[in-house]
């Protein structure tokens, strides 16, 4: 054979060299064992290797067993310690979970707050339950004005101030929103134009007296066909009731409006006058804003020009002035209310009440902030508890 080692022989040798140890422990499969033993017969090196390994293991088997230096049993006190330890462990786990949950809630609430602020999410009642009512009231106010163009003031445009007494009475009913809504709805029913007018009017009012006046005219025109709404009666009513109003709205300028309104609302004026006292009070609360002022100015003019409605006009104007609501939108209905005397005050009153009712009502914003604050405080407490219980359970 010489020094020649075949490939197979080499691999067998490699295999044997690597597997002598498990072979000693009897851990080879029958095939592996056979292969190794066959190689051993031919390889003195591996036989030597196996021999020394065997002796080493035997030597290790002879290593003496050392006796324990002492007893390692535990004192009985560990039982109580363990119970306490368990309790701290459970507390800690609970704190961990609670902290995670509260943190998540806080993130959600704060995100919601931010998203709402950016308008990503919309909530109809965002500014409070009254807001919607007020908006409605404004719309109705506008409609009413449209019906009562005589008042002249831009505010009057939308609100059908010249309403029959019953209407006014109804409006004055405490159910601000309901009434407003009812009026608005009626007006709407009476004619979509009224609504349109109402919309146009608030915008006009906000802009400037002039603009308002224009819109009034427009509104008046729009309303005129319907007739009734602009006369101060609820749109629906005005439509039905005031042919005269039709003429009146058309004539309306800011100044002109008054006379017409006055004329139409003469009838209502008396009623309005009755209600006026109520309105001014309410209206007075709402500081007349720019719009109110111009309207007031327009009113006087309107009043002066038309001799028709000396009374209602001043009253209306007064009302309007007093009525101007805190917000522009509110002003419109209130102003209108003034002009109407009846409708306006009611509207104004409604608007006022609506605005003042906001204070005790929690808006969504406020609730979110409050919740975030509570969660934040809770989180701090939990983190403190987490650290403390974590410390205690290590002991």
């Amino acid at each position, binding site marked *: 054979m010489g020094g020649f080692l075949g490939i197979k022989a080499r691999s067998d040798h490699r295999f044997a060299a690597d597997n*002598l140890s*498990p072979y000693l*422990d009897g851990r080879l499969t029958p095939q592996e064992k056979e292969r190794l033993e066959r190689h051993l017969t031919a390889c003195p090196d591996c036989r030597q290797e196996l021999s020394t390994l065997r002796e*080493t293991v035997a*030597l*290790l088997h002879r290593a003496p067993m050392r006796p*324990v*230096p002492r007893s390692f*049993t535990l004192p009985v006190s560990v039982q109580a310690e363990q119970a306490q330890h368990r309790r701290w462990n459970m507390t800690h786990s609970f704190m961990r979970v609670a902290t995670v949950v509260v943190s998540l809630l806080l993130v959600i609430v704060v995100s919601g707050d931010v998203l709402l602020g950016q308008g990503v999410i919309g909530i109809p009642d965002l500014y409070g339950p009254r807001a919607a009512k007020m908006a409605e009231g404004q719309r109705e106010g506008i409609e009413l004005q449209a019906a009562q163009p005589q008042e002249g003031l831009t505010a009057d445009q939308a609100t059908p101030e010249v309403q029959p007494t019953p209407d006014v009475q109804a409006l004055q009913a405490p159910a601000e929103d309901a009434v407003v809504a009812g009026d608005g709805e009626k007006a709407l029913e009476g004619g979509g134009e009224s609504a349109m007018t109402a919309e146009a009017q608030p915008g006009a009012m906000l802009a400037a007296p002039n603009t308002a006046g224009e819109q009034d005219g427009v509104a008046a025109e729009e309303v005129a066909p319907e007739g009734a709404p602009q006369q101060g009666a609820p749109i629906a009513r005005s439509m039905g009731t005031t042919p005269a109003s039709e003429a009146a709205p058309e004539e309306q300028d800011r100044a002109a409006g008054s006379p017409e309104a006055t004329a139409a609302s003469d009838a209502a004026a008396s009623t309005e006058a009755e209600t006026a006292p109520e309105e001014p009070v309410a209206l007075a609360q709402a500081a007349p804003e720019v719009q109110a002022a111009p309207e007031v100015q327009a009113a006087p003019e309107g009043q002066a020009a038309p001799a028709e409605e000396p009374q209602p006009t001043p009253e209306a104007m007064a009302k309007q002035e007093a009525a101007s609501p805190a917000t522009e939108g509110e002003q419109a209905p209130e102003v209108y209310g003034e002009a109407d005397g009846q409708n306006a005050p009611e509207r104004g009153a409604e608007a006022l009440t609506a605005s003042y009712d906001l204070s005790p009502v929690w808006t969504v914003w406020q609730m979110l902030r409050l919740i975030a604050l509570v969660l934040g405080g809770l989180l701090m407490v939990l983190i403190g508890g987490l650290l403390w219980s974590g410390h205690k359970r290590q002991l």
Partner: protein
Amino acid sequence: MNEEKLVLAAQKGDVNAFNQLVLDYQGLAYNVAYRILGNADKAADATQDAFLRGYRALHQFRGGSFKTWLLRIVTNCCYDQLRVLQRRPTSPIDDLVEDDEHSTILEDSSESPQEHVERLELDGFIQEALEALPEDQRVVLVMSDIEGMSYEEIAEVTSVALGTVKSRLSRARGKLRDYLQERRELLPHRYRL
């Protein structure tokens, strides 16, 4: 009580039941710790630590071999000690000589004094040789050839695969053999390879 019942009772918090288990296993635990650490005091600390940890962690024991579960804790405590341990500049033989308060080696009544001394020397020698091995090989060799544990038990204790146990053991034995062969003159005659 058999072991299973003892374990169950101990899991409910019965310290006395657990102490019975301690008495059963402390010899094994201490010797493994000593062979791994090479120092009697550190081995005692590791053993006590292991039993205390075992009692506290009993709720995690879900059946199977209590022996391998316990030894796993013991080896972990040994690893902790190894990180902390400052190797004392004494040889294991010095260690044996110093421990004369208690018998360090079990006496074999059939031994002659000569044989006894030689066994002491061997013990020291083996320990020295063991400490020359890398830790993971040492652990496997101690459990297999000194404590007679199977490959499977070792795999459970060390949490490695069976093949890893085989190869580690193979290398450990070869290294130890080489160590002993290089110093064969130091070995008592009867033990020379």
